[in-house]
């Protein structure tokens, strides 16, 4: 039960029930769909970029508690950051949820995202936690307008 409680922490359940920045963005400079064909999780991430800065970010879609809470946290965390800062945060988040090696001060930089540390005990859920981030990564780069976890 403790591993489960670690996975489904209160803050994660809260973001699942009341996701932040959960809306379509009319004046987005870019939007990308992210899709996990295995479980049907499906999100669209909207970005408003000014130069290298993510001025605004929002999302729509549906999926499990982990994927939705992760998208919500992601949107709250990267707003106002530069592309480079967001990508670097993705790298640290990825290491966190896959149980990979973390660099010095990583937990400080991750801040509230540390709530997702429990995911590393559930390998089948890593894709859920990282779907929104992979989609953001695609939106920040010149990748296709649709990404899939498979």
């Amino acid at each position: 039960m403790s591993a489960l409680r670690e996975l489904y922490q209160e803050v994660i359940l809260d973001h699942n029930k009341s996701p932040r920045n959960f809306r379509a963005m009319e004046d987005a400079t870019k939007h990308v769909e992210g899709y996990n064909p295995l479980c049907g999780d499906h999100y669209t991430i909207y970005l408003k970029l000014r130069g290298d800065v993510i001025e605004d970010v929002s999302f729509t879609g549906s999926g499990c508690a982990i994927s939705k809470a992760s998208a919500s946290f992601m949107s709250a965390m990267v707003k106002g950051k530069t592309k480079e800062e967001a990508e670097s945060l993705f790298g640290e988040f990825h290491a966190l949820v896959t149980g990979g090696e973390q660099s010095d001060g990583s937990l400080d930089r991750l801040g509230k995202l540390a709530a997702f540390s429990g995911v590393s005990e559930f390998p089948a859920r890593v894709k859920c936690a990282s779907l929104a981030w992979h989609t953001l990564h695609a939106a920040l780069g010149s990748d296709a307008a649709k990404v899939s976890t498979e």
Partner: protein
Amino acid sequence: MQTTTQTAAQDLMDRFIAVRGCRHHFPLLRQRVNGKALVYFDNAATSQKPQVVIDAIMRYYEEENSNIHRGVHFLSEQATQAYEAARVKVQRFLNAAHEKEIIFVRGTTEGINLVAQSYGRKHVGPGDEVLISAMEHHSNIVPWQMLCEEKGASLRVAPINDAGEIILEEYERLLTSRTRIVGLVHVSNALGTINPVKRMTAMAHKRGIPVLVDGAQAVPHMKVDVQDLGCEFYAFSSHKTFGPTGIGVLYGKSALLEAMPPYQGGGDMIKSVTFAKTVYNDLPHKFEAGTPNIEGTIGLGAAIDYLNKIDMERVGAFEHDLLDYATKALSAVPGVRVIGTAREKAAVLSFVIDGIHPHDIGTILDNEGIAVRTGHHCAQPVMQRFGVIATVRASFAFYNTKEEVDTFVAALHTVREVLG
């Protein structure tokens, strides 16, 4: 006298295995997962294997391994006999008229692809129609889509009602003079619906249309008699039927199979080869190019021997009772909606819980040692029909128990606790 009675009793025991006593024949079921006794409710994905199947495969490699239909030597003879004996077991199990009507393939998927590519490419042309139902697994949709795309034909879909039953009047209306073949699932993997395939086959036959039945979810749960059903083709997979993976069966009526071109070319499917012309082998070998999955057929044969001892009629009755029990118990969990409430159902309980994603339910059940499938079950059109992205699916086999159902339902209450 006493000795004779004992022998008779022993004979009876050798011939019959009580459904309730069979659980210990499956070594994997003794496992513990996450510190809990395993509750394996993912039988529609694949079934577990009894010791006799595992032993048969091991014995083949220890004592008989050799290539078939080739050597004059002792081992090749042994392997060939074992391989062909498995074909006869399948023939009797399905009550096919001839053993040559049993084609060994990789699984149901390959069986359907064989028919689509061989029969379909020969008989389906521009403007023609292929008819399937709205509850097909992707494996009975995509091969026909590929065929229709290539030939300029169209794929028609018989709709289902809110309970998850094919609407027979609509199905009948969709059987037209352009319909070249019908593909129907016997038991739906996502809903559990048992379709009236005998009646639906007769309806197609009235218009002279052949029928393929996808039996992947039916053969493990009920007595199937292909001559009684009357269908032209019937496919199933060994691994869902307590046998090994990578082997399955396509049954086809010999008149149709004889007239069909080969599916794949290679060794074993030929009588003679020159660069100018190849003469194809007779049935069933015409459709079995290359060295086949010999261990797989032997394992499947052992699974069929085992199932014959239990008796498929008794399996069906036992599972029906278990499904009833589980359906009632599940309905007591708040917020549950069962997807698939057909009058005739087999061994599958698909459901959603209000406000909780199936994936989260699956993780929490796994933590309790309970294996279920969550997702779209390779039947996305079914999910779309019922307006859900995914479901939780508990699917049973005859080795499951009511106690396991109780554990499962108790764990669903934990889901509510954890996710609020």
